[in-house]
């Protein structure tokens, strides 16, 4: 069977179910604990929706609670096909470069419509926001210790990108501040 490309949310949940069988609430907890909520945009209600889609595709199965525990939660387990698909799509996620376009591009494109003070102020505000995001990520990284080395690398990736942006902001601000402004 050829599964179409999974969405980010589908691939993430498939991976978490493959780690170990879990029920919906546990999955929600893990997403919260690992700080995945922001970058995956999975809310509690959408977990079941996504799990339902994975089940329809035959990538996960649900163990129905039996007997006395009829009220117990449904436990999701990865299927053989699911694991195969997870490996395939994880490799392709690593290989593929999918650029994300920052709003700063539009900001810079239209730079000329701005007054000098307002423009510089906006860039400074962006700098502050980047610093705050750097601090937030560094904080999560400490609070979540111990992290496996591959997750450390994941944090370093995001931190590295933010540091590059912080550097660009400093340079650009310096330059734009000191250059003569044509009004």
């Amino acid at each position, binding site marked *: 069977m050829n599964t179409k490309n999974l969405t980010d949310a589908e691939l993430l949940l498939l991976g978490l179910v493959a*780690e170990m069988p879990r029920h919906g609430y546990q999955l929600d907890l893990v997403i919260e604990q690992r700080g995945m909520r922001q970058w995956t945009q999975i809310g509690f209600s959408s977990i079941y929706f996504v799990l339902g889609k994975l089940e329809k595709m035959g990538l996960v199965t649900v163990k129905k609670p039996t007997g006395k525990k009829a009220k117990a939660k449904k436990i999701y387990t990865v299927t053989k096909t699911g694991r195969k698909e997870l490996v395939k799509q994880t490799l392709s996620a690593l290989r593929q470069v999918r650029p994300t376009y920052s709003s700063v591009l539009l900001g810079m494109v239209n730079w000329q419509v701005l007054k000098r003070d307002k423009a510089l102020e906006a860039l400074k505000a962006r700098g502050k926001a980047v610093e705050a995001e750097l601090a937030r990520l560094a904080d999560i990284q400490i609070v979540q210790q*111990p992290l496996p080395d591959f997750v450390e690398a994941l944090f370093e990736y995001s931190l590295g990108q933010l540091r590059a942006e912080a550097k660009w902001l400093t340079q650009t601000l310096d330059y734009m501040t000191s250059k003569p402004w044509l009004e």
Partner: protein
Amino acid sequence: MKEKDFRAKLKELYLPSPNDFVLVDVPEMQFVMMDGQGSPEIAVKWLFSVVYPIKRIAKERMGKDFVEPPLEGLWWADDMTDFILGNKDKLKWRMMIVTPEWVNDEMFEQAVATTKKRLGDVPTSLRLEHYDEGKSVQIMHVGPNSEEVPTITRMHKEFLPERNLVPNGHHHEIYLNDPNRVAPEKLKTVLRQPVRDCTPKQ
């Protein structure tokens, strides 16, 4: 130690086969450690937090030679029946994480000061100390920690007596996986017991 020898030693110490008990010679190593009784949860939080800044320095210094150190624990009880029955609140433990030899008191104190800001009062037993086990028997246990007992029993009732060995130190466990990320049946734990010879006198 040469790089290649170091890798081989690391593998010998931390990745034994799950099939058979093996004898190893464990060198003296330095650890960040903490002692207690009952649940070690807070100690584990402290250890990983203190080791975190040290790991950052180690990664910079060692580059690709850096290896993520696992959590290790020594377990014992004043009354060994509690140990055998697994009476958790009676069990005493020492939780520890290995550090490179060049980590000194100053680096450690600094890491503790950083962690104090986050976690509050520093536990009194938290320290940087060497631990030397020497000759030991070990095996890889694959599965939940609650299923270690048959293997430990086999070690103490069969392997040790058959070789005229007696325990010479605390039961030692090395937790290679995070139970939050790995299914119970796949969890890998090194079970280690320091031993000494006790050949009966003729």
